[in-house]
């Protein structure tokens, strides 16, 4: 197999890890907020979400590093619009994901504390889970990753 084939495989692997991790986090987050769950249930779901986070990190790393190498290998220009837009979206998705990660970690810690204190229902936990701004950041970050996937296929202007 050629270098191009290996690079493409690991780049696509990065995309699967990234989007797969986002899907894991997204599904379990929806499961946590869709019903009035007990703090112990929220804590369990957030512990499982944490298992998907390394997948997202590895995916971010592989998609960018191998993507830039592919640009060089194939002979695209680093200044081409679809590549610049993809990198900007990648950076924004990573930055929003980082903000969201901190927020969700605090929410998970609150759920763990409440679970340890007898599992009482908590308006504070519910408010954190359903905070519109946090949800917008969380889902905005995920949607940007899907937008990059679209850009990689259509390559507008290439």
């Amino acid at each position, binding site marked *: *197999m050629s270098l*191009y*084939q*290996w690079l*493409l*495989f690991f*780049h*696509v*692997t990065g*995309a*699967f890890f990234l*989007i*797969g*991790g*986002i*899907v*894991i986090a*997204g*599904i*379990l987050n929806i*499961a946590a907020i869709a019903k009035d769950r007990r703090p*112990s*249930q929220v804590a*369990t779901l957030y512990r*499982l979400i944490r*298992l*998907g986070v390394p*997948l997202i990190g590895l995916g971010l790393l592989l998609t960018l590093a191998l993507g830039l190498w592919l640009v060089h290998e*194939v002979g695209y220009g680093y200044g081409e619009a679809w590549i610049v837009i993809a990198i900007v979206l990648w950076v924004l998705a990573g930055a929003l994901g980082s903000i969201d990660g901190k927020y969700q970690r605090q929410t998970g810690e609150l759920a763990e504390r409440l679970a340890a204190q007898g599992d009482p229902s908590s308006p504070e936990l519910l408010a954190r889970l359903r905070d519109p701004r946090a949800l917008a950041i969380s889902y905005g970050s995920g949607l940007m990753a*899907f937008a990059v*996937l*679209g850009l990689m*296929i*259509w*390559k507008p202007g290439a």
Partner: protein
Amino acid sequence: MLALVRPDSWNLPLFLHVLGATLTFGATATVALLGFAGLRGDPERAVWLRRLGFRIGLFVLVPAFILMRAGAQWIADKEFPGNAKTPGWLDVGFIVTEPGAVLVLAMLILAWFGSRRAGSRVAAAVPWLAAVYLVALGIAWFAMSAKPGS
């Protein structure tokens, strides 16, 4: 270097196929995580996690799988119309998705039984079947992206 010469009309089916494949990967991994977590802890928690795994399998994994498979058929029909001979890398994809559909179905049936009572023995098979399917998906995305032999 197919990506460099791909006709524009192939983009939408390819996007839907890849989108479906990535969603299938994420949903299968979620079913596996919930399934493994549902093998431990108190019975009430175990049943809740298994039930959640079954619902995610039914309402996320199955639609994602259909999107992946329909997108695959759509682009295969465009790329290899009629009786054109299909390359090995494409055949690998069909080998993974067709028996894969049976595996997903078996996983869902076992997940349904497993979510009905805490002591269910079949529940243990669900996360392992999901893990096997994740490996199969990995083989398929290797064949689809690297296209070895082409």
